[in-house]
């Protein structure tokens, strides 16, 4: 009977079965649907109203091929299903299957059934049955699989009412397993049952074979008395898998008919072109070219708009609010800080738009297939292509996207080299320095030198990533069998709704994740720059007045001079001066040094910091900053501070240095410790220093 408490429903299924689409249909709370295996990595919970006034919590578990976990994402599924005390432990599990891949998808279903959780078999993508000549005998399948079946199409929204009805009546579902898997080794499993009479046999088996957290107290005990050699266990797992497939094959022989004469196949025709040894690469690089072009072309206008809006807002606040610390904090710290986050939204949104279209359509798997052999020469995997491409937006989602690389060494190398790709945060730094030191001229009549420099910097990023990967490949001694299995899903037209949701979710994640740090840094920076320890800071006004006795200053000039005096003697100014010996061989003065330090947390802070230091006040008015930077002259040598040598040195420094605290945090999370992020930091920043030093010393006037 329908109960008053919320029913917990778990969605389980192989990748590419439209599981997340089902989730969207049930909850309306929108999430991402991907065609690339392993895209759902977080725990996603939604809420659904069912008939008879029943309500349900819907949990979208990461896609998994079986309960034998081979990745972190798959572990999540097992731990959830083994832990009865979890507050989301399912009252009913929906196993989502794709009608075209029923045989393979059912393997997971038989495993879930063995956990004796009430289970509904959901056969999705039913709208493709006609094209593929598939017909199903549902009553027969229900009888054999000891379950109820919902035939739906989540893309079209068909069959959802019937599914909801089945969920409400989950109490009437059978919890009996549909096959007896323990018959693969009756003696062993008989012993196991005798020793732990109160535990489910299949759960015990999972604990023995998997590295999951379950019954921590008993786990060692179970392992010790029932351990087998690794190869014996694997042999048993193989036997188990064969046993399950035998059962599934037998049932499908009766319950499923496929008329191959009807089946239409445009997959093979598309594959022929997209994975062609020549055209495949032409298309891939063509797509990349279009993506980069449009990211820069299309986002220029909204970025300018955000830029000028925040500049105006900052000005307005400063003029409207009563002068004081609070006003300064808001107009110089918080508003530019928020502006510095929001300005990246257009680029990030466009990048994720393209990436999710490529994933949704199934094309990404073809790129993996096409690039694997080439990438392997550098110690990477075909699957590293996706992180390296998305690294041009931001290294953080890119590093998370390495999770489906099975081989630990290849995955680690991908994580370590991904930050070399030119992320969107380097762009503002590159833009202003290029504008300062590279002449706005054309060579050969059509190549703009500034644009060319920017392109070279992007290429430099990719090349460094690849080269350091092959170096790491030689240095790192990590054993472990390399293996590589990638599913090649059928092509699908991307659903607008799914793509839109993905873009929104990813952009939100950026704004609230990376954004917090950028904002915090801006505020700290503002504090450090507007406070100082000594009388030189306190009495700035007096000092400037004394220095300029007899020289008439306009009010604006006077204010600028005071601000400069203050910054020079503020906490950050003193910090900058103390590191000057380290950075002057690179061609930087103390002001650039501060900008470099403060942009350690996030590169894009660089421009804002220089703006603050050069007391331009309005940090978003690029012309003013640019003019100010251009007219900066080294007091000793009378050489402009931003000359060709120091500019190139800065560009190279930013191309290599790991100036991003969030990247370190995500590397720590993905590698489970501080060892790799620290190595990453030291190596990248060391390289940056050496290269920038060499460049400056060679080019210096």
């Amino acid at each position, binding site marked *: 009977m329908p109960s008053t408490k919320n029913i917990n429903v778990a969605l389980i299924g192989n990748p590419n079965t439209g599981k997340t689409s089902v989730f969207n249909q049930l909850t309306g709370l929108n999430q991402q649907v991907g065609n690339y295996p392993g895209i759902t990595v977080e725990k996603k919970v939604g809420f659904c109203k069912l008939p008879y006034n029943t309500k349900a919590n819907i949990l979208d578990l990461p896609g998994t*091929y079986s309960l034998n976990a081979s990745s972190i994402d798959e572990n999540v599924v097992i731990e959830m299903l083994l832990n009865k005390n979890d507050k989301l432990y399912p009252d009913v599990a929906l196993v989502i299957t794709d009608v075209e891949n029923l045989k393979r998808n059912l393997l997971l279903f038989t495993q879930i059934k063995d956990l004796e959780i009430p289970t509904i078999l959901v056969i999705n993508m039913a709208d493709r049955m006609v094209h593929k000549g598939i017909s199903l005998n549902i009553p027969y399948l229900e009888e054999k699989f000891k379950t109820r079946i919902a035939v739906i199409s989540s893309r079209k929204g068909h069959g959802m009412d019937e599914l909801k009805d089945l969920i409400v009546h989950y109490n009437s579902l059978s919890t009996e397993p549909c096959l007896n898997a323990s018959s693969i080794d009756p003696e062993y499993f008989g012993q196991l049952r005798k020793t732990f009479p109160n535990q489910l046999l299949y759960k015990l088996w999972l604990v023995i074979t998997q590295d999951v957290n379950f019954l921590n107290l008993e786990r060692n005990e179970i392992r010790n008395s029932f351990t087998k050699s690794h190869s014996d266990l694997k042999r048993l797992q*193989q036997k188990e898998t064969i046993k399950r497939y035998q059962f599934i094959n037998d049932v499908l022989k009766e319950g499923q008919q496929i008329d191959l004469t009807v089946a239409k196949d445009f997959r093979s025709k598309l*594959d022929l072109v997209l994975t062609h040894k020549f055209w495949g690469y032409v298309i891939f690089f063509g797509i990349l070219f279009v993506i980069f072009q449009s990211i820069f072309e299309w986002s220029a206008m909204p970025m300018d708009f955000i830029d000028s809006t925040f500049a105006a807002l900052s000005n307005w606040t400063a003029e409207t609010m009563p002068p004081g610390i609070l006003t300064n904090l808001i107009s110089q710290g918080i508003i530019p800080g928020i502006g510095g986050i929001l300005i990246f939204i257009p680029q990030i949104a466009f990048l994720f738009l393209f990436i999710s279209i490529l994933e949704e359509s199934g094309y990404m798997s073809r790129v993996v297939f096409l690039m694997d052999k080439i990438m392997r020469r550098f110690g990477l995997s075909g699957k590293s292509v996706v992180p390296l491409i998305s690294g041009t937006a931001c290294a953080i989602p890119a590093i998370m996207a390495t999770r489906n690389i099975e081989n630990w060494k290849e995955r680690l190398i991908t994580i370590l080299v991904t930050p070399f790709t030119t992320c969107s945060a380097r762009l503002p730094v590159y833009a202003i320095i290029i504008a300062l030191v590279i002449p706005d001229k054309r060579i050969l009549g059509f190549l703009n030198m500034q644009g060319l420099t920017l392109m070279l910097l992007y290429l430099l990023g990719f090349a460094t990533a690849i080269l350091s990967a092959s170096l790491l490949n030689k240095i790192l001694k990590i054993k472990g069998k390399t293996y590589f*299995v990638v599913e*090649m899903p059928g092509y699908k037209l991307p659903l607008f709704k799914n793509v839109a949701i993905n873009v929104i979710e990813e952009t939100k994640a950026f704004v609230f994740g990376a954004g917090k740090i950028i904002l915090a840094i801006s505020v700290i920076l503002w504090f450090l720059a507007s406070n100082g320890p000594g009388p030189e800071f306190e009495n700035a006004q007096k000092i400037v007045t004394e220095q300029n006795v007899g020289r008439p200053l306009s009010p604006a000039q006077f204010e600028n001079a005071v601000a400069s005096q203050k910054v020079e003697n503020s906490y950050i100014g003193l910090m900058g001066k103390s590191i000057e010996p380290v950075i002057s061989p690179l061609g930087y003065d103390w002001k650039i040094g501060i900008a470099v330090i403060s942009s350690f947390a996030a590169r894009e802070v660089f421009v804002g910091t220089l703006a603050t230091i050069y007391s331009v006040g309005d940090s978003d008015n690029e012309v003013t900053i640019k003019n100010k930077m251009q007219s900066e002259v080294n007091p000793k040598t009378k050489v402009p501070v931003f000359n060709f040598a120091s500019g190139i040195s800065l560009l190279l420094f930013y191309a290599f240095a790991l100036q991003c605290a969030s990247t370190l945090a995500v590397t720590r999370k993905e590698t489970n410790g501080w060892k790799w992020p620290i190595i990453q930091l030291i190596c990248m920043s060391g390289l940056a220093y050496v290269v920038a030093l060499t460049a400056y010393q060679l080019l210096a006037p």
Partner: protein
Amino acid sequence: MRNTIAQLKKGEKAIILEFDVEAIPLKLLEMGCLPGNMVELLQIAPFGDPLYLNINGSHLAIRLETAREIEVDILKNL
């Protein structure tokens, strides 16, 4: 020496024979790569590796080194 998946030509089909469990990732077994099942080589990637297969109805790609571990009986002209 017996044939392996690595020896298949494009478009050829074969039946999977016994193989060394240690050499094959479990994930591949679970995707249907099991003795007795049919495998068809759909595409070979440029530079000869990886291989794009249809195993028991599943479309997937594996590397040559894994393909060499899986012995098969090649079906002629079916």
